[in-house]
């Protein structure tokens, strides 16, 4: 009887989760998706808790209370910190899977060989491997995104990196196979500990060679791993809800990762093992190229004359927290009857959809946020393209320069606009360390400075010029 009720509860929860994701297909219904997710989770927790085998209720209450105590503040982080928070929550998800797997292993060990089928043993080890790998990998990613001092921002590479990683991973798999074949051997618990240590280590080594520009892909992949570790847990516990929810998460991470990879014209393996940031600082073009800079006054005058302005935001906008100033600029231009659109590159920022969330926070209607493919055909009609802290995603070298590391990456065609203003913090190349031909184009003027200050100046010019406030 109890079994029937709990299975029914899990079934309803699975359906609710599918609806939750389905409702995410448009911003209008998306919040309904959250409520469906909450309902599904609450139902799953309730029927599990009601299981007669549960006797230590105080423990559960304390752990849940602690989860609320940490979870509520974590949900209130500024939106610019959302990539770190997401990475951190992947780490939590990985930790949960790893710890439950560890507990299950040592628990079943006491119950003898029959307690686990070979299939469950494989699933258990997969759960532990993916769980701990996701834990340390995501912590490293979160550290890089938060710019923690002792975690190197730039990719770290050393000789035989991939080979030594492969050897390490191979050792882990070999141990895993040995345990699966002899789960009751006296050395099995120690070997299992070895698998844990190797997984933790492997997670760190996997992220060390990855640079900031690749973070969107890596976060998506870690998202997928966290889901798959939940699937593995579902196999161990023979729980179909875990399998369903984990599979949804796993496929979500996978799709996002594929979208990110396509948007950079790179393969999975290239992102994970390519150490992108270590680009040789080749200066093939001998001639010294010069920037033309412009003052905010001049730029404001050009903007006032425009009828179609496209703003192209990048990570620099997030760093400078410039989204609210961008909104003021948007308002000023709109007031003059100028059409303003935002061109969002899929990998702009440090996680999928990063720019959209920041601009939505600044109250910019999402109907003015355009995808790269939507806006590119219109770029030649654009009077002013305003690049706010974006770099590689507008670099025309991706179309023309076969030697460029970003060759083949789809970009926003800012260079086709009638004029371009590019706001840039300094004259250094972007995260990928590549020079941007766009800045040297005869239609481009640079506005050097912090994005927030520069846009603030532009707004001041526009408000001053119109004689109202």
């Amino acid at each position, binding site marked *: 009887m109890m079994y029937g009720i709990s299975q029914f509860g899990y079934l309803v929860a699975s359906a609710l989760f599918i609806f939750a994701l389905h409702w995410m297909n448009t911003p209008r219904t998306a919040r309904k998706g959250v409520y469906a*997710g909450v309902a599904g989770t609450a139902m799953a927790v309730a029927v599990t808790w009601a299981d007669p085998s549960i006797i230590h209720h105080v423990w559960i209450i304390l752990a849940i209370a602690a989860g609320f105590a940490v979870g509520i503040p974590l949900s209130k982080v500024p939106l610019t910190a959302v990539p770190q928070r997401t990475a951190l929550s992947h780490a939590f998800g990985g930790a949960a899977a790893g710890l439950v797997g560890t507990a299950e292993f040592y628990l079943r060990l006491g119950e003898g060989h029959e307690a686990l089928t070979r299939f469950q043993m494989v699933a258990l080890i997969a759960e532990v491997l993916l769980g701990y790998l996701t834990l340390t990998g995501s912590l490293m990613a979160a550290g890089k995104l938060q710019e923690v001092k002792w975690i190197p921002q730039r990719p770290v590479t050393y000789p035989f990196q991939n080979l030594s990683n492969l050897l390490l991973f191979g050792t882990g798999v070999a141990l895993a196979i040995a345990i699966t074949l002899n789960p009751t051997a006296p050395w099995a618990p120690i070997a299992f500990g070895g698998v844990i240590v190797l997984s933790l280590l492997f997670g760190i080594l996997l992220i060390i060679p990855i640079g900031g520009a690749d973070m969107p892909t890596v976060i998506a992949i870690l998202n997928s791993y966290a889901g798959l570790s939940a699937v593995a847990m579902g196999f161990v516990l023979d729980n179909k809800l875990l399998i369903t929810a984990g599979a949804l998460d796993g496929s979500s991470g996978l799709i996002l990762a594929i979208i990110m990879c396509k948007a950079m014209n790179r393969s999975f393996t290239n992102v994970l093992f390519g150490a992108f940031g270590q680009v040789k600082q080749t200066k093939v073009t001998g001639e010294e190229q010069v920037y033309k800079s412009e003052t905010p006054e001049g730029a404001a005058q050009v903007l006032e004359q425009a009828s179609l302005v496209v703003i192209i935001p990048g990570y620099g906008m997030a760093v400078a927290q410039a989204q609210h100033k961008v909104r003021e600029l948007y308002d000023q231009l709109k007031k003059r009857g100028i059409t303003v659109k935002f061109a969002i590159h899929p990998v702009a920022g440090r996680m999928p959809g990063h720019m959209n969330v920041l601009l939505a926070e600044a109250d910019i209607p999402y109907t003015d946020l355009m995808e790269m493919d939507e806006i590119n055909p219109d770029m030649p009609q654009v009077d002013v393209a305003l690049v706010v802290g974006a770099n590689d995603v507008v670099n025309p070298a991706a179309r023309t320069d076969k030697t460029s590391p970003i060759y083949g990456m789809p970009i926003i065609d800012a260079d086709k606009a009638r004029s371009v203003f590019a706001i840039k913090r300094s004259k250094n190349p972007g995260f990928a360390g590549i020079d941007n031909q766009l800045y040297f184009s005869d239609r481009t003027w640079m506005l050097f400075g912090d994005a927030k200050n520069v846009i603030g100046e532009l707004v001041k010019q526009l408000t001053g010029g119109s004689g109202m406030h």
Partner: protein
Amino acid sequence: MDFWPTLYVFVLASFIGLGVIRRVSRLLHTPLMSLTNAISAIAVVGSILVTGGDYPLRIRILGAIALFASMTNIVSGFLITDRMLKMFKTDKRGGGTPT
């Protein structure tokens, strides 16, 4: 245990996932990530079973830490997703902008 039914569930659920996620608006990829994160914290089920069952203390400690981690993801995941989604608006100023 016959593992074939669970494998079926996994494969079919993955196909549903691929189908559903493909249609998610690109605008919402960040909230999508935090939502799936909260949903995959369904590992809470396993954590509760390990924490609350009649098991040795060290097992239950592992379970309690896992339960804490999953619960943190559930709470912060759903809350921040909703917080972000609330911000996505069409032109709320009444659409009085001339074009």
